[in-house]
């Protein structure tokens, strides 16, 4: 039976008509035209559909949209602010961490979850942090570089913020 639910996505409230069996990935992409989140394996293995729900990593391909009522969803579209890319996104560009780009939205969200919890991760911690995101192009080296670089940018931003 179809019903209307309200979803909090990237700080905005969306009323959306769904069936109970609709998956978050399909609601994001097909009903709300938020196609930044990619659908890969569809069974929780590849991580490209990673979003943050209430700040925690979640796989949109294994999440019922109806179970997200009252929770805060962050997708790749919510990373930039006022037309300025998030430092993690900018680091991915500057370090050449994007090739085909299909894994990138999920990588960026996993990196955000990691850096929110651990602002200065070691290389090993970065690898663990993105271990649920598969990339078939880069060999991961530049992605790890980008996350390390992003950590530095965010810390510098936080330090300058304190001084201001």
């Amino acid at each position: 039976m179809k019903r209307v639910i309200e979803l909090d996505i990237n700080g905005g409230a969306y009323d959306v008509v769904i069936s109970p069996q609709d998956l978050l990935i399909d609601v994001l992409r097909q009903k709300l035209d938020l196609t930044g989140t990619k659908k890969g394996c569809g069974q929780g293995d590849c991580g490209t559909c990673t979003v943050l729900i209430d700040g925690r990593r979640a796989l949109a391909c294994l999440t019922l949209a109806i179970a997200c009522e009252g929770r805060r969803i962050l997708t790749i579209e919510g990373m930039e602010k006022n037309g300025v890319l998030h430092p993690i996104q900018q680091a991915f560009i500057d370090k050449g961490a994007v090739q085909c780009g299909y894994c990138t939205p999920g990588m960026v969200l996993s990196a955000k979850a990691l850096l929110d919890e651990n602002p200065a991760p070691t290389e090993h911690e970065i690898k663990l942090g993105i271990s649920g995101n598969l990339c078939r192009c880069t060999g991961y080296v530049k992605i790890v570089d980008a996350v390390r670089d992003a950590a530095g940018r965010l810390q510098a931003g936080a330090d300058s913020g304190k001084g201001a």
Partner: protein
Amino acid sequence: MSLPPFDYLAPGSTAELAGLLAAHRDRCRILAGGTDLVNWMAEKIYRPDYVIDLRKLPLAGITYEKGRGLTIGAAATIEAIERSPLVRQYYYALVQAAGQIGSPQIRAMATIGGNCCNASPCADMPPPLVTLGATVVLTSARGSRELPLETFITGNRQTAIQPDEFLERVHVPDPWPNSACRYSPFGLRAAQEIDIASVAVNIAIDPATGLVSNARIAMGAVAPFAMRAPGAEALLVGKKPDADALDGAAAQCSRECRPIDDLRASASYRRHIVGVLARRMLRDAVAAITG
């Protein structure tokens, strides 16, 4: 991929949940993290009329009280267990197991209740829980009952749960005095891997005599469920935990397990790996106790 249609229910109390289960029984499935259930519904293994979500229920707590032990709510995530300072301090093998499951995303979603109720032979939580003497509390409108995890899981993806029951919490007794528990899985890669074999050990040493006073060993992915190694345990109890005793017990684990050949590994390779893991975990646990 789309799911077959169902109605979605999110009860606000465990009494309401018990009522729904009593009413719908085999026509419903409980949703916790969804990492197994959603896949199984997509594959049409389950076509429930009702999906009952636990998300509004207070079932995610992790508490420890000396003398009473550890209580983990069924909906506690694997990530929460991995990060719990209480679990790390008293039940380190559970942290080792939780940290090995799936990926960071899977660990943030999946729950201990799901890992126990779905009862995969290669599930990571049951082996250490079995060595720690864990019990599960099953609740229904008829009341609650508590049974050892070791008897709760009865076979490959089979448990003693009744259609009107839900797993409410997992209870782990206080650690034995002067004991340590350790767990290691073995797979072909570090993340997003299904274990070829795993071994959990829990061992206590009498500080007065230096002899092993208690030992439990459980092996995963080498039998239909997390399987105890009673012969190996018997070889340890009352003995000095030196290299010979530990190696002898590890070799006995290899003999006692009941692995199968499948696409991930041959039975003989699994048997070998069980021995290697058992030796490592026994040595790690003994070193943790004796410093």
